[in-house]
């Protein structure tokens, strides 16, 4: 640079310096006011691009949280309803035990049956509960209309078996409420695997007090029927009435065959039969119906009494299976709720990580920015003072 400086340049350079300082100050002011280091993408293009993805991830986490709340609401509702259904079934069980007392009169039994009927209605209304937003809770995905409908005495399920999956954290899915078919409809009877039943037309007083898989021998899944041929002898026949085996029996003895066993007490008449086989499924409503039907049958004969007792026993077992199913469903719902809690922890951890990263990328270091602001302010003031001072420094003023 040469020794000569033009007056115009002197002014324009001082001015340019001041303008430059002012621009820096304005930028700093914007940063301080917004608290953001990145004001536009050009301040750090790579970070700005990454921030777009992180912002999206953050918004997604927040949405997952809302989704989790929606599902948690429904699962809590399911929990409450199933608890109520469990109570209903416990009451039914109590009533069945009460009714099993042989000293009850037919009227007493009828009043118990009436209460059972109302319990059945109560169960139906639980099964048709909505989630508060007009969607039926136990209908699977066909939750637009009531899943259980009554026609005559039987209840049919109109829902489907879709159990919705909802994403509540990245790649973490939780299952929504159980479909009603799994809770109320498809419940196996008997002891859950095997069911034994006294034949309807038995004329003796034989009571089927217990049955199940025997401790010896393996079961091939087929059922059979014990047909009494005398007061203490029986045949075991298959479905086609082929005699498979025969034996003798005394009251209270176990009859075992093919991995299954039955215990019959009392005095069966010749020709009486007791069947055992794989337990079919039944629905909660017809199970209660059977209980009611058994109670309303007021045949005063000894055989009638035995038949009633057999029917009551069978129905009580089925009610117990129903109650177990309620517990299973509640346990499953509880597991999902626990998962929602766990997912919340995951979300919170992710949230903190992402926010920290984002903050490093674009949040302002206030201490640094403020000290820079002060330095720049001083620099601008100095430049202004020097400019003003320089103004007076002209030879023309002195001559």
């Amino acid at each position, binding site marked *: 640079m040469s020794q000569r400086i033009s007056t115009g340049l002197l002014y324009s350079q001082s001015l340019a310096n001041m303008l430059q300082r002012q621009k820096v100050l304005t930028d700093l002011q914007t940063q301080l006011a917004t608290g953001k280091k990145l004001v536009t993408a050009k301040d750090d293009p790579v970070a700005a691009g990454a921030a777009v*993805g992180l912002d999206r991830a953050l918004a997604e986490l927040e949405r997952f949280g809302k989704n989790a709340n929606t599902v948690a609401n429904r699962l809590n509702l399911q929990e409450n309803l199933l608890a109520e259904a469990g109570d209903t079934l416990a009451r039914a069980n109590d009533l069945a035990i009460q009714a099993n007392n042989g000293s009850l009169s037919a009227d007493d039994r009828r009043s118990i049956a009436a209460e059972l009927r109302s319990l059945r209605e109560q169960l139906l209304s639980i099964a048709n509960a909505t989630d508060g937003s007009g*969607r039926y809770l136990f209908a699977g995905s066909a939750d637009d209309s009531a899943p259980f409908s009554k026609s005559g005495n039987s209840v049919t399920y109109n829902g489907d078996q879709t159990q919705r999956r909802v994403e509540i954290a990245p790649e973490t899915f939780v299952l929504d409420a159980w479909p009603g078919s799994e809770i109320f409809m498809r419940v196996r009877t008997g002891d859950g695997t095997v069911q034994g039943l006294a034949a309807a037309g038995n004329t003796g007083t034989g009571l089927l007090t217990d049955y199940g898989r025997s401790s010896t021998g393996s079961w091939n899944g087929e059922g059979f029927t014990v047909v009494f041929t005398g007061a203490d002898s029986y045949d075991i026949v298959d479905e086609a009435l082929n005699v498979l085996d025969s034996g003798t029996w005394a009251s209270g003895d176990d009859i075992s065959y093919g991995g299954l066993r039955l215990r019959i007490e009392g005095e069966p008449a010749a020709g009486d039969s007791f069947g055992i086989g794989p337990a079919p499924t039944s629905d909660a409503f017809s199970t209660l119906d059977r209980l009611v039907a058994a109670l309303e049958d007021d045949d005063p004969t000894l055989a009638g009494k035995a038949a009633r007792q057999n029917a009551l026993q069978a129905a009580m077992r089925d009610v117990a299976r129903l109650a177990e199913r309620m517990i299973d469903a509640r346990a499953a719902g509880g597991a999902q709720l626990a998962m929602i809690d766990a997912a919340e922890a995951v979300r919170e951890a992710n949230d903190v990580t992402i926010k920290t990263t984002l903050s490093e990328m674009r949040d302002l270091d206030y201490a640094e920015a403020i000290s820079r602001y002060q330095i720049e302010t001083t620099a601008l003031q100095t430049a202004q003072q020097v400019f003003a001072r320089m103004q007076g420094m002209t030879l023309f003023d002195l001559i």
Partner: protein
Amino acid sequence: MTVLSTGTGALIAFQRALATVSHNVANVNTEGYSRQRVEFATRTPHDYGYGFVGNGVKIADIQRIADQLATSRLLDAGGELARLEQLSSLSGRVDQLFSDPATNIAGMWSKFFDSVTALSANAAGTAEREDLLSMGRSLATRFHQLDAQMQSLDGEVNNRLLSGADEINRLAAEIAQINRSLSNALNPSADLLDRRDQLISQLIGYTGGTSVLQDGGMANVFSAGGQALVVGVHASTVTTVADPYRPERLQLALQAQGSTVLMDQRALGGQMGGLLEFRATVLDPAQAELGRIAVALATTFNAGHQAGMDLHGDMGGPFFSLPAPRVSGNSANTSGASLSASVHDLAQLDGQDLILRFDGTGWSATRADTGAAVPLTGTGTAGDPLLVGGIALEVSTAPPPAAGDRFLLQPTAGAATGIELAISDPSRIAAASPVSASADVANIGSGVVAGLKVTDASNPGLLADVEIEFLDAGQYMVGTDGPFAYTPGDSISANGWMLTLDGLPAAGDIFRVGRTPPRSGDNGNALALSNLDDARALNGGTVSLNGAVGGLTTMVGSAARQAEYSADAQQVLYDQALADRESISGVNLDEEAADMLRLQQAYQAAARIISTADTMFQSILAAVR
């Protein structure tokens, strides 16, 4: 009277010199002014035989202090600075557009997918469905708005090119005019030379380039790229012509001797170069990328949406509607043939504009910006379309193309403007899986449906009712087909769906798969849709939609940052060149004050000489009285 004439001569010379000083002082703020200096010389002395007696002073020259080298450095730096400042300021505007959450795509994008995720939690909810529609509409609108903003920047570039061309012509004509008047003058006027330098620097600020002095003191001006703007007394005319493929877009051309020659759009400097570079390297790529994201969103989301079932019980239709890729024929095409284009493979789509050429037998493709060849396959018939860059093209048969026909293919240019929501009925949102599975109520096995996934939504038998019956725990029939072996955990596939079971099915257990009924609250498809933003659908399956949105921000930000850095660096170079020129030619008031003082004193002394001469004259008069 030599004393008197010496005195008056000096008086006049110093008066002139003082006038020059005051001229300098007066022009201290005149841009482009070169200071002038008076060169004094002795007058021819008179020989008296005994020696020479001086005759005083005369003005030899009024010199214009200028250095051609410094001036051309300043011209160079100024042209480049004008280009980079133009580029930087316009890029900064695009950057702002993409950075502000109120105008950019990322914010609305996130809200839209958020809304899809919300739908997946409550698939039949009317509020969620309405929200998704309104978010979809908002997202489409945001695409329109951003694209419109960029269109208006494009329009601004056009306007600036138009007004720039006028200004170039005015400046060039004026320079030629000054050249003409200077060519006749023996002693060119310093102020006229300053004026010409100033005009040249303005002209080069528009086009970049250099000025070359020729014999006779005339200055020739060439644009960056070497096209002559002023030669001697002739000025070229710059005009704007429409792009042959896109008539709404202007290019600069030079009119000389009745023919119009396109100016080299890539080499041009100055403001015009900055405008063209901005358009080619920032605006077009950003617009193409925005379009590509719109295409990717619409294509991916539509494919996902069409694999689901709506509340009416119908398979989903397109969620977004999108215009076909734009193909425009060159205005010089003779045949009138046309091409119809459609997106063929999203993963290959890169948004680059391509030029397609027909040589009479086959087609070839080149990049519109670089001219590099791009692979192209197919013949252009309906059965065998031309495939290039993820786009399928069908060539019209009536009229057929003629040899030499050229077309511009802009795969994604109209997408951001044209993307619209295709549905308006919230019930038409296909949130449910098209098929659902159920276990027969009489099943005694513990098998339950764990998952049903659509693997091929286009399978014609997808919605058919199918019964899966287990013959025993290890074998099953699908309808009348089978038996197939089953081990727990196996999936069962047919008709484009895949079923998985939990638990152990028993002999006689029946599972049914069939069309999802209307008004289903199933969320299977909404769940799939909500994860589409992370689907790697672009760049050969390596970049997700979210990634592309972030990438666009980075792309625009980097372009703006680079332009700003270059402009800042060039500003320093320009300042140096300016300081150099000013140190030679600029006016320093202190210097002028000193000069003035010096000349004033000399003037006073010369006046004293005259009064001395007068005294001498009076003495003689008194002597002879």
